[in-house]
């Protein structure tokens, strides 16, 4: 029971890390290596507002989400759109976006270090909460709930609304989407911006229970990429399920076998899934 609940909560954290990247990579086709830095930026905002103005990270989260959306929309339009236009093949775009977003991640680290070079550490809702006899941290529970709301919201939006359907169409086949009259650049920009906003929101929440610093983003980028690939590129449900699976397995390994092996276990699962379902849990088999 302990394992189930703690694992679910950790899975929620991982979902927060990965959902945004899934939108960015699955729809806008940008393998965003600055994803982790974007997350840390959210954490920095929450920390900063908390230490300067004692503002609750939850308030920061609500305030920062639209800002992050606008910021990421601009990044896409100004920095990434030219690469998309220029790329003749998807391979070319992949290479270009790796290079460009890697550059961006450096630039973001540089900016964040200038703002606050120390650890972002503060205490928010760090109190025990009892679920069915298992003690969990309230801040993790809150993060899990927000992750659930975002996750369910995204799935519903993607599947039951017109704009959501357009986003899915672009994710499945860019060319065909164009043919049926979808404004692909606009949809891509929205998906990228939305992904960025989700990631930043994730960052504000994660900062309440994990101590971050300006340079730690790459760790989150790696986790996010792995989850997205595990779940299947372009399918938000896949990412959520992969995140929860990862959370459960890591917690189970840490509790039952040895906490030293969590990282290894995560990669073994990842490898296993790749070998038996190379397209990811929910991915469509590539033609």
């Amino acid at each position, binding site marked *: 029971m302990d394992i189930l609940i703690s694992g679910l*909560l950790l899975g929620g954290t991982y979902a927060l890390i990965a959902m945004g990247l899934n939108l960015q990579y699955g729809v806008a086709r940008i393998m965003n290596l600055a994803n982790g830095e974007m997350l840390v930026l959210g954490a920095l905002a929450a920390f900063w507002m908390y230490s300067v103005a004692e503002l609750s990270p939850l308030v920061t989260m609500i305030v920062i989400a639209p800002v992050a959306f606008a910021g990421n929309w601009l990044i896409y339009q100004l920095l990434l759109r030219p690469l998309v236009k220029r790329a003749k093949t998807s391979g070319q775009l992949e290479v270009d976006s790796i290079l460009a977003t890697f550059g961006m991640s450096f630039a973001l*680290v540089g900016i964040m270090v200038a703002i606050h070079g120390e*650890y972002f550490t503060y*205490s928010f809702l760090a109190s025990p909460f009892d679920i069915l006899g298992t003690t969990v*941290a309230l801040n993790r529970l809150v993060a899990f709930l927000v992750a659930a709301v975002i996750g369910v919201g995204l799935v519903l939006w993607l599947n039951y609304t017109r704009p959501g359907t357009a986003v899915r169409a672009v994710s499945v086949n860019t060319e065909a989407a164009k043919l049926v009259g979808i404004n692909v650049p606009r949809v891509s920009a929205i998906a990228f911006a939305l992904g960025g906003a989700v990631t930043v929101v994730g960052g504000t929440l994660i900062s309440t229970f*994990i101590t971050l610093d300006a*340079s*730690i983003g790459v760790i989150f980028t790696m986790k996010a990429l792995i989850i997205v690939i595990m779940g299947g590129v372009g399918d938000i449900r896949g990412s959520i399920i992969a995140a929860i699976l990862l959370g459960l397995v890591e917690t189970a390994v840490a509790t039952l076998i040895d906490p030293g092996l969590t*990282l290894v276990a995560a990669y073994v699962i990842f490898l296993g899934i790749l070998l038996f379902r190379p397209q990811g849990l929910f991915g469509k088999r590539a033609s």
Partner: protein
Amino acid sequence: MNRRKMLSRLSTALATVGTASLLTFSALASDTVKIGAVAPKTGPLAGGATVTQWPTVDLWVAQVNERGGLKLKDGQKKIELIAYDDKTNPGEHIKAVQRLATQDEVDFIVAPYGTGFNIAAAPIYAKYGYPQIAVSAITDKIGELTERYPSLFFTLGSTTAFVEGVRDVLTGLRDKGEIGNKIAMVNVADAFGIELAEVARPIFKEAGFELVYDKSYPLGTPDLSPIVKGAKASNPDAFVAWSYPPDTFGLTEQSIIEDFSPKAFYTAVATCFPAYAGKFGSKINNNLGAGGVNPDTPKMKAYRDAHKEVTGKDADYWASANTYVSLQILEQAIEGVGELDREKVTAYIKANTFDTIMGDISFDNQNSNKFWTVGQWQDGVFRGVASVNVEGAVPVRLKDGWK
């Protein structure tokens, strides 16, 4: 940085890259003493260096310059600080130290931050004869390293001494009948964490303790609750975590949530950071951690006040002070020699006793055997409770829940 200096840097750079020749470029006349410093501003160690290393270096430079500069035989000279970011990358670090030595031609260099970086840079310091008064370097190879590098000095102690400090604190409590002999030990599975755990196992056993829980966790583990739960389930008398900064925070927070509070609760690196108390407030009262200071001596008080005033931040309760001590030693040695001759300054450091904020410091075989090993948060201040040759340790208190 003013504009003129910026321009001169830029032109230096352009000239260096453009001509690719070995022009020695002295952009400024030698009316200053040039001091170099390389430490991380980004990368995994940056979070620690920006607390412990950089502010103290800035403070020292500001203080020396405010009093008119270093007193040399040919008059007082102000310090010009040239600082580089090594990005927590040994290759970058080596390059930056070389650059300081041969391009910027600095007179002295502040020792690096981190054990690995001190050792990686030691050959260059040795080659150009820079005295290297290492602070943030804890190793059991002090003897071998100082023999190899004649201008390398150690000031923060050895791995074994650190573990022995913890052992002494715990045996003290046990002998008084306040705790039993069951220890739950965890460590971060990275260089220093593995080393400490390895050293600790036989030392704890020899002292008659029983390790009822002994696990490691990977660097950057996002959820430490299984570890804390495991440790709690083993029902220990003492909890010892050989941890790095992010997990020191994480383990403590998780222990509060699980209400795991053995009578002795020790976490290693960063327990001494003001941010630790900032985060947890009074809850961490009586927590044990690596390091410590005696904050009550007038000199230490003056240093801490000045640190706050000049840099706007609090000094940590451990290596910040040691870093300042190393700079005081450098300062007094330069002034004692009266010139910028590095060989003479190194010899001076070896031969003399220095009056510092941690009392008198002198080196025996390039090692100052005077440092704090264990500290404890007592009513908002992290005080040293165990040391090697430092006075002013206060009695250890028992932890009594998270309040």
